[in-house]
C-alpha cells in the first residue's frame, strides 16, 4: 500500500518544469491506487486513455504531491470506479471513445456516446451511426413517483444536456444527468495535429474558459519540452486569466440571481461583465482573449495604454461591486431562495475532489494557484476563500470573494509587470515526451496532458474539465430539494457541458 503512495511524489515544480515521467504500473499497483482512492487517501485528478493504455493523475491532499500512473493495455483495465465513484463517468467515456473496458465497473452504460459514434479501438476512424439506442435511466421506485424529462433542448439558450427527474410531487427523489450532446471529438482532433492547431482546439474546448484551457495546454507543451517561458508572458497570462475569472464570476453572480427572478442583479452584473470584456477587447484585441496564450508565451503584448485601461476598469468595478453585494445581502426575498438550497456536503466534495467554487463552498480549500503553484501566482499575494455551508448562497459568496481577490491580483500584476519579451520559440524535438498542465480556471482546476509526437506535432492529448467532478455532485445536491429550485442549483454549479463532453 505504501509503495503506491510513494509513486505520487512529484512536486508542483517538477510537473511544471520538466516532462512528466511515465510510470507504467501492473494490475496490483493499479488496484492498490484505486483502493487508495476509495479510502480518500489520494484524490483523483483525472482518468483518461491513450493508445498505450489508461492514465490516472493522482494527488495526495496532505502533501500536495502529484503522480501519473499508466496502465498499459489495448483492451481492458481494472475498474477504478468500483472503488471510487468519481471515476465511473471517466471510465464510461474511455469505453465510448477508446473501447477499453473497465473490468468490474458497476455501470457499463455508455456515457458520451449516444450510439452514434460507432467508434471502437483504435479510435479516430468514426462513421456516424444514425439510429439512437435507448438509454437505461436508473430506476426509482415508490408510491406516486413521476418522471420529468428536461432537455437536451431547453427553453432558454443554454448548452444541451438532458436531466431526468424522478419526483414525488415537487420534491426531487432522484436526478440523473445525461450528457455528451456537445461531443466534438477534441481527442481525435488533437491526435497528430500541429501544436499551433492543438492550442486552438484547446482554447475552444469550453468557450468561457478559453484562457484557462489555452494556458493549461501551453503549460503541458512547455513542460514536455522542459522550457521556461519569459517572465512577462507569465504575468500577462495571469492578467488574462484573472480578467476571464472576473468576467465569468460577475456574469454568474447575476445569472444565479436572475434564476430567482431577481433581474436587477442580473442587469447590473451584466453591465460589469460587459465592461471587463470590453476592456479585454481594448487591451488584447479579443473580448474573450481567445488564442492569446500559446506555447512559449502570449500572442501579443499589452497595448501601450493597456495598463491604464485595466486600472480604470478596476476602479469602475470596485466603485459599483460593493453596492451590488450589499443589494444581494439586503434582499431577504433573494436570500430566502439561496440560503439552504442545494446543499452539498463537505464529505462528498472532498471525495469527488471537486474544484473551484463548488469545492470551496463545501470546505475543500483547494485552488491550483495555491495548491500546485505556477507562475506568476507563486509570486503574488492572494487568499483562497473557503466556506463549509455548501449551499447556493455559499457558492455565490465564494464567487464574490474571488472577484475581490481577482481585483487585488490584477492590481498586483499591473504594479509589478516585468519588462522583456513575451514569447520564446519552442525547442525542436521532444518526440515522445509527456507534459502535464494544471491551471485554475474560473470553474476549477483544468488538467491538460499531452504527448509530443514527431516533427512538432501532438501524438495524443487530453483536457480534463473541472466539471467532470462537479456534475455528479449536482445530482447529490438537488436531492430533497424541489424541482423549481433546480435551475438555481444548476446555475450555482454552472458546470461546463462543452468542456465535459469534449
Amino acid at each position: 500500500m505504501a509503495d503506491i503512495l510513494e509513486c505520487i511524489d512529484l512536486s508542483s515544480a517538477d510537473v511544471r518544469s520538466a516532462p512528466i515521467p511515465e510510470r507504467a504500473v501492473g494490475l496490483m499497483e493499479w488496484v492498490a491506487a484505486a483502493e487508495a482512492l476509495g479510502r480518500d487517501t489520494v484524490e483523483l485528478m483525472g482518468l483518461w486513455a491513450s493508445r498505450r493504455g489508461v492514465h490516472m493523475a493522482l494527488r495526495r491532499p496532505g502533501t500536495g504531491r502529484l503522480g501519473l500512473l499508466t496502465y498499459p493495455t489495448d483492451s481492458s483495465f481494472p475498474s477504478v470506479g468500483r472503488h471510487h465513484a468519481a471515476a465511473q463517468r471517466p471510465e464510461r467515456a474511455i469505453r465510448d471513445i477508446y473501447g477499453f473496458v473497465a473490468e468490474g465497473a458497476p455501470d457499463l452504460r455508455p456515457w458520451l456516446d449516444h450510439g452514434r459514434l460507432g467508434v471502437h479501438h483504435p479510435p479516430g476512424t468514426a462513421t456516424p451511426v444514425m439510429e439512437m439506442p435507448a438509454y437505461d435511466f436508473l430506476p426509482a421506485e415508490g408510491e406516486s413517483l413521476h418522471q420529468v424529462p428536461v432537455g437536451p433542448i431547453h427553453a432558454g439558450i443554454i448548452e444541451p444536456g438532458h436531466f431526468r427527474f424522478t419526483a414525488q410531487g415537487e420534491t426531487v427523489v432522484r436526478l440523473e444527468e445525461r450528457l455528451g450532446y456537445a461531443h466534438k471529438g477534441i481527442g481525435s482532433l488533437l491526435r497528430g495535429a500541429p501544436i499551433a492547431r492543438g492550442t486552438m482546439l484547446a482554447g475552444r474546448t469550453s468557450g468561457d474558459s478559453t484562457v484557462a484551457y489555452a494556458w493549461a495546454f501551453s503549460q503541458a507543451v512547455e513542460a514536455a519540452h522542459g522550457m521556461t517561458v519569459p517572465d512577462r508572458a507569465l504575468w500577462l497570462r495571469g492578467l488574462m486569466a484573472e480578467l476571464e475569472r472576473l468576467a465569468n464570476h460577475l456574469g454568474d453572480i447575476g445569472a444565479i440571481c436572475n434564476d430567482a427572478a431577481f433581474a436587477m442583479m442580473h442587469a447590473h452584473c451584466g453591465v460589469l461583465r460587459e465592461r471587463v470584456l470590453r476592456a479585454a477587447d481594448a487591451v488584447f484585441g479579443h473580448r474573450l482573449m481567445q488564442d492569446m496564450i500559446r506555447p512559449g508565451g502570449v500572442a501579443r503584448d499589452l497595448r501601450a495604454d493597456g495598463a491604464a485601461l485595466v486600472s480604470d476598469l478596476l476602479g469602475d468595478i470596485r466603485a459599483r461591486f460593493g453596492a451590488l453585494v450589499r443589494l444581494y445581502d439586503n434582499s431577504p426575498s433573494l436570500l430566502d431562495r439561496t440560503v439552504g438550497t442545494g446543499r452539498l456536503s463537505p464529505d462528498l466534495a472532498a471525495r469527488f475532489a471537486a474544484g473551484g467554487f463548488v469545492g470551496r463552498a463545501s470546505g475543500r480549500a483547494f485552488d491550483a494557484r495555491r495548491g500546485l503553484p505556477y507562475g506568476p501566482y507563486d509570486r503574488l499575494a492572494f487568499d483562497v476563500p473557503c466556506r463549509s455551508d455548501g449551499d447556493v448562497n455559499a457558492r455565490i459568496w465564494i464567487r464574490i470573494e474571488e472577484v475581490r481577490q481577482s481585483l487585488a491580483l490584477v492590481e498586483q500584476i499591473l504594479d509589478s509587470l516585468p519588462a522583456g519579451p513575451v514569447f520564446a520559440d519552442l525547442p525542436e524535438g521532444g518526440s515522445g515526451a509527456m507534459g502535464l498542465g494544471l491551471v485554475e480556471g474560473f470553474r476549477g482546476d483544468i488538467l491538460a496532458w499531452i504527448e509530443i509526437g514527431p516533427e512538432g506535432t501532438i501524438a495524443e492529448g487530453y483536457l480534463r474539465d473541472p466539471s467532470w467532478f462537479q456534475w455528479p455532485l449536482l445530482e447529490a445536491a438537488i436531492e430533497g430539494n424541489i424541482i423549481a429550485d433546480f435551475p438555481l442549483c444548476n446555475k450555482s454549479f454552472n458546470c461546463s457541458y462543452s468542456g465535459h463532453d469534449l
Partner: protein
Amino acid sequence: MALITGFAIQGLQMLLVLALAPGLVGLVRRIKARLMRRPGPPIRQPYRDLLRLMRKEVVLAENASWLFRATPYLVFAASWVAAALVPTFATGLQFSWTADLIAIVALLGSARFFLALAGMDVGTSFGGIGSSREMMFASMAEPAMLLTVFALSLVAGSTQLSTVVQVLHGPPGVGLRVSLGMALVSLVIVAIAENGRIPVDNPATHLELTMVHEAMVLEYSGRHLAMIELAAALKLLLYVSLIACLFVPWGIAREGDPPVALALGIGTYLLKLALGGAALAVFEASIAKMRVFRVPDYLGVALMLGLLGTLLLFVSRAL
C-alpha cells in the same frame, strides 16, 4: 335613443379593454427594462407579437383533443367578458346588471379550469407541473378573492360592481374604513398571484422548471397562443381596473353623465392604468421570486385579511 347610447358606451368599453390590454403589458415590460437600465422593447411590441402569432401556423401535438383546441377561445372569451364587466371609465353601463363581482370571479375561475385541463391534455410533464402548481395557487387565491368581495359587498350592500363603485365613490361615500384597507391589500396580493407576476411566477422566465402559467401553455402556438396571451393581458388589465375602480374611483363617469364626463373618465382611466403598470413594474424589479411552497403562505395573508375584513364588518358596520 338612450338604449342605443347605452349599447354604444358598453361597446366602447369592450373595445377599449381589448385595445388597451396588450399596451398595459408592453408598458410594464418597458418600465421594467428601464429600471434594469435597458432600453427595452417598445410599448407596442405586444401588439406586434399578437399579430405575428395570429399569422403563424398552429402546431398541434398528435394526441391533442378538442379540448386543447377549444380552450384558447374559451379562455379568451371568459377573460374578455370579465374584463368588460369591470367599470373602467363609467358606471351604470348597459350590462352592469350582470357585472356581479361573484360572476367575475366565476368567469376567471372557469377560464383557469379549462386552461389547467388543456395543460394536462397533451400529457407532457411540464403541462402537468404547471397545472398542478396553478391549481395549488388557485385553491388559496379564489377563496381570498371571494372573501374580499364579501367585505366590499357588506360595505356597499351589493355584490354588483357598478353599485359598489357608486356607493364607495359617493356621495355620500363611505369614508376610510379598516375593512376596505384590508380588502385593498388582499386584492393586490391576489392580483399579483392571479396574473403570475413576481414573486409568485415570472412571466419573463426561460426556465421551464420554474414556470407556472407558462408551463401550462408551453404546448400552444400560433393563434392559440395569441388568444392565451391576449387573455392573460386582459386579466392583468381587469385586476388593475378593478383595484382602480374600487379604491381610486375618482373620475369615473356615472349613468347619464354628459359626454365630457365620459371623456374625462377615459382620461383618468388611462392615467390610473399607467400608474398601476408603473407600480407593478417597480414592485417586480425589487423582489425575487419566492419558493413554490411559500406561495400558499403568501396567499394565506390575503385570505386572512379578506376574512378579517368581513368579520370586522359583522362586529361593526362602521369599521
